[in-house]
């Protein structure tokens, strides 16, 4: 039997909805384990990618400095990088803040907003800093494939990954392509 494909997954500025939807492949997950093994992923709680990973699935857009580091680690390790879901592809709903200056966002949240006690901007060095704008991941790294949807359905995940595992360029039939 051929060696199993290594898959890593993560959510940057996302809601983990894409990960939930991935699990909608239901019992096919048993078949999936015949094809792949999971590397870094919230599903395994492995914190960093192995040196070589075959497929990286990125959910969410790039909102802060930590997202940048994570995305770069994935790009470095993964042979094939896939932008999964609306946020990774176009920033998604978190990108709504792109229309408000970051200065105002932070001020509203931490300084001047309703009910704020002891107003201050958190400054612990462990906290990632926010980027001026939320970016889709293709503006930061080269992306190999895009799997649209909010979230993409379990069937779309299944089709995409089985195509890749079979060495094919993944394609989706009409009813599996949607942006919402």
């Amino acid at each position, binding site marked *: 039997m051929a060696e199993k494909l290594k898959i890593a997954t993560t959510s940057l500025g996302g809601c983990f909805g894409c990960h939930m939807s991935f699990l909608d492949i239901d019992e096919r997950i048993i078949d999936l384990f015949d094809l792949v093994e999971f590397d870094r992923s919230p599903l395994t709680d492995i914190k960093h990618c192995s040196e070589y990973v075959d497929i990286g699935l990125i959910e969410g857009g790039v909102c802060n400095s930590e997202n940048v580091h994570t995305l770069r680690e994935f790009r470095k390790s993964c042979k094939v990088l896939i932008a999964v879901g609306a946020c990774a592809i176009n*920033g998604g709903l978190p990108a709504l803040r792109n229309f408000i200056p970051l200065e105002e966002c932070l001020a509203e949240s931490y300084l001047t907003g309703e009910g704020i006690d002891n107003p201050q901007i958190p400054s612990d060095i462990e906290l990632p800093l926010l980027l001026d704008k939320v970016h889709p991941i293709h503006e930061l790294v080269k992306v190999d494939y895009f799997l*649209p949807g909010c979230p993409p359905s379990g069937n779309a995940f299944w089709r995409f990954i089985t195509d890749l595992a079979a060495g094919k360029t993944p394609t989706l039939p009409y009813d599996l392509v949607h942006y919402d």
Partner: protein
Amino acid sequence: MSENTLTIDGKPVHFKDGDTIMEAAIRAGIYIPHLCHDPELKPQGNCKMCEVKVNGRNCSACTFPAAEGQKVLNNIKELNENRRIIVQMLFVEGNHLCPGCEKSGNCKLQAIAYSVGMMEYRFPLIYPKREMDTSHPDILLDRNRCIFCEMCVRAGREVDGKEVFAISGRGIGNHLIVNSPSGLLKDSLLEVTDKAANVCPVGAIIIKRHGFEVPIGQRIYDKKQIAEVSVATEKVLEEKVHG
């Protein structure tokens, strides 16, 4: 007397005197992708989605006059690739957040993007800052989603007999403006039954309180491709308007 026949992708199509290629195609039940064309409105040719090859030359099907013996190419790889670029341009130009849009599933931009297999944006996003107008009791104007097809502009003038919308600005700074003293929709002549209020191919002009009425899976383009939907509805309209 001429035979009044041209071919589209090799298929003979009859046309009437004065027809554009688009009108002949619609009558013949052939789909040429388009976003700014409606049989009831004067063709304008701004979206460039309907670009076809006429005897080897690129032309907008919606404005180019049909003529005897034209060999029109429509559903070919090169043109469909161009169409994919156009939808990608429209997506990065505005703020099209499908998951939060009431028009999703019924949106022509989205449907064409599906049908040309748009999986990604290709270009960096522009994220323009655009105004919303929520003032009208029944109609919402969200400029974030406007694609400058000018259908609402023309529908107001040509069908409703009212001057409601217009394009202002220049180039990438173009924006839709509303004809009222305050510049707001509530003070304009627009009514919920007007064609201008219902013609928007995207979610820029929508009727309030009807969002998300139809469940996912049953919306217009959930199962049917835009080619099928468009041919079915526009053929009837075309024959009603131009015979």
